[in-house]
């Protein structure tokens, strides 16, 4: 018998098997990923059982870098945009920025399942019982990204967001004690310092993508006027 040392993913999977005993995993060599599949039972906060979703989770190598993709294979959730699911059952758990940051900041399989996946499905059941979603939603597509910049980064306008993104991309050195870019008159360290760190953490690729969208948005607004 040959014993292979378990990989980090395999160790993390074993660690969640107490909480998600009906999920199993396999390796997909062709697509360089781990595939988790099986049943996800949802119970409420008092422990009462509600429903069972068939799920498929793709975890691309190397782990834990990429945000996993999750699909509902059962069809309990209506397949419309309003339910935050694609026609193929891919679930949109959160704004990608949040997910990316979470993984950068050390989120692993256990946290992903417990903080993102389970609440998403519990929330769908909450809505299916005619109560609507329990919490908030992001707007769809780029409006959701703008909402993220506004609510989570305190950059309420595309102009401000663009200004901050550019300052990061241009690698401007920002003095903590100088006046904040936002024009509030306060020192950066007492204003948007944490936001600048977050934007840096999001990485160039995400920022460039968002920048293009913000600029197009302004152009389209200008066109409409």
């Amino acid at each position, binding site marked *: 018998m040959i014993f292979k040392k378990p990989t980090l993913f395999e160790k993390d999977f074993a660690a969640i098997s*107490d*909480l*998600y*005993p*009906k999920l199993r995993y396999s390796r997909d060599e062709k697509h360089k990923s781990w595939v988790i599949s099986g049943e996800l*039972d*949802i*119970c*409420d*906060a*008092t*422990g*009462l*059982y*509600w*429903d*069972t979703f068939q799920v498929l989770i793709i975890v691309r190598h190397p782990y834990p870098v990429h945000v996993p993709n999750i699909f509902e294979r059962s069809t309990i959730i209506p397949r419309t*945009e309003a339910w*935050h699911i*694609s026609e193929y059952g*891919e*679930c*949109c*758990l*959160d*704004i*990608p920025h949040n997910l990316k940051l979470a993984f950068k900041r050390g989120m692993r399989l256990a946290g992903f399942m*417990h*903080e*993102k996946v*389970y*609440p*998403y499905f*519990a*929330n769908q*059941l*909450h809505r299916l*019982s005619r*109560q609507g*979603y*329990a*919490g*908030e*939603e*992001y707007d*769809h*597509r780029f409006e*959701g990204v703008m909402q993220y910049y506004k609510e989570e980064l305190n950059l309420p306008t595309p102009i401000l967001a663009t200004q901050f993104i550019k300052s990061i991309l241009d690698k401007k050195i920002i003095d903590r004690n100088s006046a904040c870019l936002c024009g509030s008159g306060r020192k950066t360290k007492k204003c948007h310092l944490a936001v600048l760190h977050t934007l840096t953490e999001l990485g160039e690729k995400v920022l460039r993508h968002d920048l293009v969208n913000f600029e197009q948005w302004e152009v389209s607004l200008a066109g409409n006027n």
Partner: protein
Amino acid sequence: MNIYEDYLQPIRKAIAADGQTRTYSEFAGGNVRNKINLRALNEAMPEKRLLPSLEQFADAVGLKPDFTQKLGSHPDFAHLKHTEDTEEHYIVSMFVDVRRSTQLYGRYEPATVFVINNAIQRAAIHTALIFGGYIHRLQGDGLFAYFGGKNMSIKDAVNRALQFASVYSYFVKHDLKEVFEQQGIEQIYTRIGVDLGYDEDVVWAMAGIGEISEVTTFSLHTNLASKMQANAVSNGIVIGDHIKKEAALLQEFFTPVCLRTGKETDRYIFEIPKKGFRYTQHDFDWLKFLKKQDYIATDFSGNIQLKRKQAPAVYANSNNLAPIAVKSKPYYDF
């Protein structure tokens, strides 16, 4: 999972009434009081009907208990009684031992102990009946049961025996323990031994004389089940190698006992070195097994819950989903 709630109620009530009725019982006399309690017990826990909480469980499992069976006689072999005939037929034998401190006797009136005993036994009997087991003998809080018979495959018998043993271990380890812990009584636990004898290993025949007789099994594997029970840890289940062999899909739940004890001599429960016969005993991870069952869900905190058959709207309130659901803020961009 509150499937035993209705069996715990009488225990709680009896304990609560215990101190207060002492004066009353002195006046009324022990006998009167015992009768009152027995009647109340039978009303609270009928012998031949599942209480609602366990009924829900049977419903979720999809099985119905057979209340026609009599203690001590496996119906498939009852015809051997008062005959000299014997039969060879496979059987799964199980010994369930419920250990609790003798504290209980010093602490409560005999009538209270009687109620506690009966509630624990009825929970066991009813659960065994759901899984098609046959209670051969009651021993204190524990029991000796058979699983299988002429109309059941070996694989089904093994599977059902393991289901029963797991659910009952859960009952004692969680529900019962909690009731006693509230009383400051800490030690209560099960130890279970299970083994399978094939047709050629088991002889069914009469034992005893006349009225003091029963139809029972003569089998190494019935004896081994009893021996393995003694080798189980608190709340543990030890099974014989035949069980493992018949449970092809459950291999991940078995580990040889010697891996737990660290002593190679514990690997086999029985050996005939001359014949090269060695019989391995295994620990059975019943909680892991239970979590994989179709009728069990694991909740957000990792506790096991019953997957009831009704729509959740019947028994649950979606407000209770909210504390978990509120953490979700979904997006859409496909």
